[in-house]
């Protein structure tokens, strides 16, 4: 096997940009959740404690907007990266190595379900990004846009009601509130559970911070990507 030539701990899964944006998201998202939930659940003691900690509702409001801007800027930067990758580097935005959803994800999902309940002996032939990782990514990418649009309506209601019906501000509030709950629960429990608390990676999967993964883990979790690297078609650093 040609894998002798590849040092086991030097397999790159995430580029510097990916890792950086992930860090920005952690801080931005946490700040958004803490300040936003302090308003959403304002009758509770932790909410009042947080508002006291940051020095009043005006500070919390600006913290929320600051975190919104840096969080959304990571969406913009990744969008710009896609454009650069596609049009300047002439890369492919689709295909087995990409984060783009594909028909294979549906097949993988069915096979994974069968594996979970014991109808299949082994997990599906996952490539660089499994369907769970794609859901994690696109939930953020799409969610940040919908939260951004509804958030802007709530930030500038006077301007938006110059051309939108006033009730849209109420509807923006409803959507912003429920999507925040969905996002926080999914990120706090599902994402952390899937990515860090599974028995095989517990207590933490450091690859999103170091960018590196081991040969064993790649063979087990991303067999299709591993075959491609081992066959020399791929250096293991191509991110999209």
């Amino acid at each position, binding site marked *: 096997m040609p894998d002798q030539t590849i040092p086991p701990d030097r397999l790159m899964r995430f580029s510097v940009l990916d890792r950086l944006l992930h860090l920005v998201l952690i801080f931005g998202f946490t700040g958004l959740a803490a300040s936003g939930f*302090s*308003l*959403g659940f*304002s*009758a509770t003691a932790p*909410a*009042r404690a947080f*508002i006291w900690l940051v020095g*009043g*509702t*005006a500070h919390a409001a600006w913290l929320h907007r600051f975190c919104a801007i840096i969080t959304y800027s990571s969406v913009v930067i990744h969008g710009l990266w896609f454009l650069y990758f596609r049009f300047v580097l002439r890369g492919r935005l689709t295909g087995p190595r990409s984060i783009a959803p594909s028909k294979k994800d549906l097949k993988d999902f069915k096979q994974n*379900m069968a*594996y*979970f*309940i014991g109808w299949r002996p082994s997990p599906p032939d996952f490539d660089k990004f499994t369907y*769970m990782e794609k859901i994690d990514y696109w939930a953020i990418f799409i969610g940040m846009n919908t939260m951004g649009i509804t958030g802007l309506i709530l930030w500038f*209601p*006077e*301007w938006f*009601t*110059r051309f*939108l*019906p*006033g*009730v849209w*501000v*109420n*509807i923006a*509030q*409803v*959507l912003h509130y*429920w*999507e925040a*709950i*969905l996002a926080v*629960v*999914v990120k706090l*429990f*599902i994402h952390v*559970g*899937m990515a860090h*608390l*599974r*028995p*095989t990676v517990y207590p933490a999967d450091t690859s999103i911070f170091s960018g590196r993964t081991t040969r064993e883990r790649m063979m087990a979790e991303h067999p299709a990507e591993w075959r491609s690297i081992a066959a020399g078609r791929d250096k293991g650093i191509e991110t999209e």
Partner: protein
Amino acid sequence: MMVCAAVFFGLLSSGLTDQTHADVSPAVPVQSSWFVDMQRFQKGAHANFKCEECHGSMIEDGHTHPDPNRPDFLKTSATRQFDYRRCQKCHKLSYQRYLKGKHAKALKEETESAGKAKAPVKETQPAKEKYPAPTCGECHSAHYDPAGMSRVAVGARMTSRCGRCHKEYSESYLDNIHGKLGVNLADKASAFCTDCHGAHSVVALEKQQDTLIVCQRCHPKAASEFTQFVIHASVSDSAAKESPKNNSIVWIRRVQTVAIAVVALSLIFFFGHTILWLLREKHEKLRKH
């Protein structure tokens, strides 16, 4: 003076006997009573007043006072008996505004209908709960309300006090960003009940041009459509039907129902998927041992 006040009786001069509502008003402050707690009175805004300054002298209306032989002795509601016209001696502006507002109008109608022989009360809105029309004393406690409260403390207090009669509106206000910021998070820049509806003038804000003036006090760049934002969006269906914004409320609820359904289904899927995955991995690990 203090002896007189220890067992304190209000003026029994008013001819108004409160037949229809007795003293079960949810509006009457819980501390309202014929007896005055002097310790609390001395912490109130009127602590330096002598009783006679508001209540007149004990023999003013020709009765001995207190008069245990009167049939309604201690049986009527204190806030329905006091002649609140006396308040305007000091609170002139507030009283004049009150006279122009809906509360005074309701009191006038109530007094007129009580004055008529026991004709059946015309029920225009039979389903609605009917509370006695508010006098000054239904909202303010002349004996105990303190002076010099902060804007936020007054706001929180009025939210519960208005809510004694306008329960749905104080609750739906607390569901709105103004209530959350102002009452729950002590933000003095938020709007409290009276900032929009007026303290004594009591405006229902049913007309868009009235509402716009109110909104522009804090949102100077607001245009007319801004007033169509619904503050009291979470009132009951029956109260919503009376609102000119009923159509909006219906749509807000539809969107909310869909949003909750999407959130619930998503969470069921994600939690189910994750739990199955964790169990499978645990099983693989245990099997290897």
